[in-house]
């Protein structure tokens, strides 16, 4: 499986100014919302090198800088590219920040248990950067259009959020939804049960 090359992957436009790119690596989805003078990126991939590739690829759809990042939850495959966005506001649930600050190094161990040895040095080099713009239940980011963030309780992790773009009829659910066999860490506390 390709790690940093996404040759067959392109940005799919899902609505006006709303894109997603599905990477061969980890079958991960990254979202992009185009704002007035910058773009918002939803999840940053699994390493600084993967994030560097993502930033290069953003040039395919916009010349605007990435000014906002949203982490859908704290799992390594969604947040380990955060350090490549030093000028962006990084948003996430308050428990996402706590998890990354307190257990960032443990997350590297988890990543290495999952990944083959050729990627372990790269994971070791990841600089853990946690979201600093955090919230408990709801938040809205004004990027020239509104991007709404909402928290619904325990799900895939304790810190999953949904990213909605009002008027676009598109939402990013992170790993609250997966078309894969389930990893049910907290089934008893599933929201809406």
């Amino acid at each position, binding site marked *: 499986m390709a790690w940093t090359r996404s040759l067959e992957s392109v940005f*799919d436009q*899902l*609505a006006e100014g709303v894109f*997603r790119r*599905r990477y061969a690596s*980890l*079958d*991960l*989805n990254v*979202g992009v919302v185009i704002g007035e003078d910058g773009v918002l990126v939803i*999840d940053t991939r699994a390493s600084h090198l993967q994030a560097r590739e993502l930033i290069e690829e953003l040039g395919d759809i916009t010349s605007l800088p990435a000014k906002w990042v949203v982490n*859908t*939850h704290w799992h390594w495959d*969604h947040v380990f590219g955060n350090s490549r966005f030093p000028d962006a506001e990084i948003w996430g649930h308050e428990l996402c920040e706590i998890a990354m600050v307190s257990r960032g190094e443990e997350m590297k161990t988890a990543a290495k248990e999952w990944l083959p040895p050729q990627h372990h040095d790269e994971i070791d080099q990841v600089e853990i950067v946690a979201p600093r713009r955090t919230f408990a239940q709801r938040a809205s980011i004004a990027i020239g259009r509104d991007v709404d963030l909402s928290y619904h309780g325990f799900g*895939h992790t304790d810190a999953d959020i949904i990213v*909605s773009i009002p008027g*676009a*009829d*598109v*939402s*990013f*659910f*992170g*790993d*609250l*939804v*997966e*078309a*894969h*066999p*389930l990893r*049910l*860490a*907290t*089934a*008893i*506390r*599933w929201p*809406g*049960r």
Partner: protein
Amino acid sequence: MPGTIVPGHGDVVDSKFVQSQHEELVAVADLATDYVTGEVDLEEAASAGPFSDEVMRGALLRAQAVAT
């Protein structure tokens, strides 16, 4: 619910998929509760779930670990 839902991995889905997955998760959660409270044993709960026995056993054991 929006018409287009982008999951963390894989294909874009619709609200019907999300509703269906939610119902499956609720079924797993109910079985996990029954297992953790001792109303059913592991194999009974695993075989009654909406996923394979292997996936169910993993979910049930993790639920127990969280609950204890």
